[in-house]
């Protein structure tokens, strides 16, 4: 497959698959609970419905509120182009792109939180505060994990760090990589507000983190936020899959299906975690995040020891 086709597949998958992950998670949870559950494609219907609606904006809000939804979606959309999904280079790739990647995620969060604050509602402000607090703890875990990969691959390019060379490192630094994998999975759950950090299904005001911030959004803006959140899940899922299944067959016809299968497995695992665990008490959340940081930190210590 030449580069253009490869990149096209990348873009198509990256923008078409995310809602399906939500569908798979919901289905898994439904099966665990003994229900039939919504159809797998339900998130697509939801998005379609939302984008057809009109918009209502509160008069107290400014442009920040409108920008929040758009920037959140766009930043996730660019970030996904930086990850080497199938092992070969990503559509956008240059030395030091991991910095861009990290800041894109940060930018998205900044604007989502700002939009929440812009409404002037104390309730949404509380949600923003929680989101940012937990992000403070999740980010170090993520960065320390990146540090391990950078050290192993000797590259500061996501395509190099997560590329096909990763497979060889599992043999000599498997302990470290396993720790990073575990740590990143925890980060995935935290960043996407899944159980045990946040229950995306509850509408109990005191338990919510992410959902609280977006209560005032409606119509296409809310659709964009939902879509952006799904993209973010896809981004982190892709990172975890790349880390866990780094081997590449070499033939793109096989590598892409392997990646998609891996992603679906991750979605199922998230579903299983959500079905078997209870949400943590809010005060216990930092403990788990600090534990994730420590996992990554020990991965580094093991590496440089």
């Amino acid at each position: 497959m030449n580069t253009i086709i490869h990149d096209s597949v990348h873009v198509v998958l990256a923008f078409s698959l995310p809602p399906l992950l939500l569908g798979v998670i919901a289905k898994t949870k439904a099966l665990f609970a003994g229900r039939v559950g919504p159809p797998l494609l339900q998130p697509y219907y939801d998005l379609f419905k939302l984008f057809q609606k009109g918009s209502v904006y509160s008069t107290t809000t400014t442009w920040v509120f409108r920008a929040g939804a758009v920037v959140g979606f766009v930043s996730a959309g660019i970030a996904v182009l930086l990850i080497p999904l199938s092992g070969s280079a990503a559509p956008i790739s240059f030395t030091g792109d991991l910095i861009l990647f990290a800041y894109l995620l940060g930018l998205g969060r900044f604007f989502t939180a700002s939009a929440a604050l812009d409404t002037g509602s104390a309730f949404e402000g509380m949600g923003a505060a929680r989101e940012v607090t937990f992000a403070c703890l999740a980010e170090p875990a993520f960065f320390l994990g990146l540090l391990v990969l950078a050290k192993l691959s000797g590259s500061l390019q996501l395509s190099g760090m997560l590329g096909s060379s990763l497979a060889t490192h599992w043999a000599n630094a498997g302990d470290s990589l396993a720790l990073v994998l575990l740590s990143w999975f925890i980060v995935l759950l935290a960043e996407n507000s899944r159980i045990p950090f946040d229950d995306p299904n509850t509408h109990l005001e005191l338990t919510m983190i992410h959902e609280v911030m977006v209560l005032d959004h409606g119509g296409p803006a809310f659709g964009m936020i939902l879509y952006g959140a799904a993209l973010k899940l896809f981004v982190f899922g892709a990172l975890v899959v790349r880390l866990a299944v780094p081997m590449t067959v070499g033939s793109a016809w096989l590598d892409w299906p392997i990646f998609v299968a891996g992603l679906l497995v991750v979605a199922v695992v998230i579903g299983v975690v959500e079905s078997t665990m209870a949400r943590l008490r809010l005060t216990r959340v930092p403990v788990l995040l600090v534990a994730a940081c420590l996992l990554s930190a020990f991965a580094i210590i093991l590496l440089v020891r």
Partner: protein
Amino acid sequence: MAPFLDPLLIVALALNFVALGVSRIRGVINAVALQGILLGILALFVHSEIGIRGILLVGGTICLKGFVIPRFLVHALREANIQHEVTPVVNYMNSILLGAVGTGLAMVFSSTLPLADTHKGLLLVPASLATVWTGFLMLTTRKKAIMQVLGYLLLENGIFLFGLLLLEAMPLLVEVGVLLDLFTGVFVMGIIIHHISREFASISTEHLTELKE
């Protein structure tokens, strides 16, 4: 030495943090029990040839540290009607951080120790020191008597890890004696916990402050 040693030790180390961070006593008991089982399995991997002696030791360790003692503690927990919350003096987050600092220091410190050539670069010594440290942490920062017993068990686990380096040097009688002492110790402590809970209707050692200057 065996290739599985380091991954197993990392799991054992991770269990230290689980023991420090979990808020239910049952969770801590399970973590310590799992670590006990791991210790037994580790003994299998440390040395290539395992005689009758080795099998006895591994079986005894797994049986005692993994099943008998935890069962007994769970029993004590139920008998004494203890509340399931750990009630730490130092909160979970700080406990974990202190544990991490200790583990980091153990790694640094053990790299400066003059180890025998075959033991260089192994995780065994740092894991041992870190587990001892975790045991001390739990002994000093938890209020409930049963948690202190668990801290003592962690401490013994750490010492056992170091003992793995000397497996050939230690005669069976001594190993068995150590295990027996450990078991009797926990047994006697369990009985006293029972008495404490009956006397004070709680097993928090906060009540044990009558004797002082």
